[in-house]
């Protein structure tokens, strides 16, 4: 045990000394996985051909001789999907880190205010009554925001200890929407809408197209920039409100901004992919193990690891079997053991 702690500490030290290679890894890892993922799929396309296709917008002649169907598959099916995995993974990593900081609690992620439960209900509602992909996405987004809105303003009804009340309200609102979703599942036809709702609640990037990727790209990049800019203030917020005020930061406004942006990011991610659990919870812990609790470094690491983790998970989901494996199944199966392992190994420095 001692040896393990030591090795964790030495890794930390090593990376803080050799800062430059770490950042290279942080950029290189998702990029490399992105390119690798493009070559993976049920349909066999060689890596060279994939590269040629990717370069074809710049050099149109390069993709000559490659079957049209392969080009279309890469550009219309694989590219948006892998991009979505990258963005959603990055988004969960960043928002998870931010929420763990402002709630001063390592066991929360951006779902703590009920955004996922709300989105799940919105999606189930649309699947039950319309079944249209685009409406499902819009409805999930709207209800995700509604759930957080309810948690936030519900907590204002009670005066003291706002953080605890906010957490409690989040749990309450989350279970309320969870019950509503169960009600819809109960009412859903077991032959058609019920499997669709169940599959959505387990998460999948299968339906991603350029069209529904657009809001994801915009909101995720905006949110990531916002969190990136504020990342050093997360340290202050994680100290507590009194300390933050003493250091000249208005903790309430700050938190409001972070919650707002994180919620937008999470809602748009959930609405595109369905419920993908564990990424926002596990990734910040993995990041802490590598670079420690300092948010200036933790946030970039979480973004990078989140993106890489979800791309790997999605690669498995779409290539292992002829049928799609729900992402929620894989993140749970792989994420939970990792979390348990990390909690055993690293005892300090949340």
């Amino acid at each position, binding site marked *: 045990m001692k040896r393990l702690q030591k090795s964790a500490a030495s890794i930390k030290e090593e990376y803080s000394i050799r800062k430059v290679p770490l950042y290279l890894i942080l950029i290189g890892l998702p990029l490399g996985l992105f390119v690798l993922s493009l070559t993976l*799929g*049920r*349909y066999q396309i060689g890596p060279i051909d994939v590269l040629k296709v990717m370069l074809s917008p710049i050099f149109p002649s390069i993709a000559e001789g490659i079957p*049209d*169907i392969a080009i*279309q*598959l890469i550009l*219309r*099916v*694989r590219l948006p999907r892998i991009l979505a995995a990258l963005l959603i993974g990055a988004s969960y990593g960043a928002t998870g880190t931010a929420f763990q900081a402002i709630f001063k609690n390592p066991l929360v992620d951006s779902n703590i205010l009920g955004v996922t439960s709300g989105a799940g209900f919105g999606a189930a509602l649309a699947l039950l009554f*319309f*079944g*249209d*992909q685009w409406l499902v996405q819009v409805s999930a987004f709207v209800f995700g925001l509604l759930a957080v809105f309810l948690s936030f303003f519900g907590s204002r009804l009670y005066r003291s200890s706002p953080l605890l009340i906010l957490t409690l309200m989040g749990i309450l609102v989350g279970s309320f929407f969870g019950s509503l979703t169960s009600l819809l599942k109960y009412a859903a*036809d*077991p*032959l*058609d*809408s019920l*499997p*669709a709702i169940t*599959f959505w609640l387990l998460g*999948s990037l*299968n*339906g991603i*197209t*350029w*069209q529904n990727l657009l809001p994801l790209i915009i909101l995720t990049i905006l949110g990531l920039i916002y969190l990136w800019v504020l990342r050093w203030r997360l340290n202050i917020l994680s100290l507590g409100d009194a300390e933050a005020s003493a250091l000249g930061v208005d903790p309430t406004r700050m938190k409001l901004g972070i919650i707002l942006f994180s919620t937008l990011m999470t809602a748009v991610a959930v609405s595109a992919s369905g419920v993908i659990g564990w990424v926002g919870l596990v990734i910040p812990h993995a990041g802490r193990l590598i670079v420690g609790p300092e948010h200036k470094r933790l946030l970039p690491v979480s973004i990078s690891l989140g993106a890489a983790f979800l791309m790997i998970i999605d690669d498995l989901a*779409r290539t292992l079997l*002829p*049928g*799609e494996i*729900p992402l929620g199944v894989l993140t749970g199966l792989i994420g939970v053991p990792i979390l348990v392992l990390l909690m055993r190994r690293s005892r300090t420095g949340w």
Partner: protein
Amino acid sequence: MKKIKYSIILLVIISSLVITACTNGDLETPNPESTITDAEVDPDFESTEPIEEQARLLIKAEPDLIEPVTVLYKAFFNGESPSFVQNDPDLLVAPPGEIVDLHHELPAVFLNDGAMYPQNDNEEIEAFIQFAVSVDGQQALINAGLLPESIDLTDQAGNIVSINLPVRRVLSAYGPVTAMIYSVDAENRFVSASYLGARDPLGSSVMEKVDSRFPDIQGNESFSQSEFNIEEAAMLEPDLIIGNARSGWLETVAALDVPVFLYDAETSEALKEAVLLTGQIFGPHSTYQADAWVRYYESIVGSIEEKMAEIPVEDRVEVLFTGTEPLRVASGDMFQSYIIETAGGISASSELEGYWNNINLEQVVIWDPDVIIVPPYGGASVEAITESDEWQILDAVKDGKVYRMPKLVAPWDTPAPDAVLGIIWMAQQLYPEQIDLDCSTEAEFFYNTFFDYEITDEEIAKICSIN
């Protein structure tokens, strides 16, 4: 005591025989046996003495069928005795015989080897025939010992189920079998039934015309594959419960102490067996209806297979059957695959197992189907595929070969009797040149024969529009 009783009965019979002999073959004799003897002895006897208006119906019956007809007649006309004749009967009673020409009205079969053929157009004859094939007619024959009091059948889950006859109050928690019960003309036995495809405007409007008790007997909310409201079931006092073999409530229902008959009809053979079992549950008339359906099904499949024999395997059309969403497809275990194969196609997703499978577009590209079919339920639509940019890479989409399977009530891709129309429709879509079956003719015949429903031109246009 008993001996005395029997001897009295014997005495009555002998004396009646003597009386009939004296009246020289009076046709109104209450005893059928004597009629047989008379008929055999003197074939022309009734012409010598025409019977008068005491007789309500003149019946000509085969010797073996005189006793059951008498039982039915007495039960229906409050103990009156029937009059048997040789010529010019109102009603002819004979074995139903082989079903040769299906496009003919089916006879009313009241015993496995006895059927009624009206010879005159008369309300009383019609009412009597209706009675003969009804549950009360069945009861009268059971009371007389001419039909069994109970039947042991092996259901499709492999259980031997002992059912007391007649089944008067049936609860169906499985939509496809509800449709089968309509097809074997036993829908008046329902206390509650779960329907398939009766929620949409077309399905519910047709059901209201087919059955005056619809939608009151619809029990979709209480009884389905996943739900079984046991208290409501207890209140309905069913004497038989019908369900799917993979229902989630099989343990709980045991508390009711009512026989449960389970179905699992995901193949062509199992579907035929399911319809025949359904017929046997409800008696001779239903058994005959079930036989007629199987005969029809086999004749359709046979004629398609005959045509398919001329098409080499490599020219067979590859079909992908999608579900409520474009990227959810039917597995090889599902009935949809059997429909495709029976119609002479190749099911693209037959390597998949289980129920509906979620897949990704790359897998569809690998399969590269010639035709894509979407089902007629759950918001599935042809447009979801044809108007999607991503799907344009498939030849089937480029060629516009994406079709929606039709339905009237039960979807034609489910293991219900209507599936036979699904096979016809599929074969027509895949091989329009070779298949000479006509969807509208067959749909009209099918719903007329098996649902007693005259399909309207408007409905025909909806379900048989050429894609």
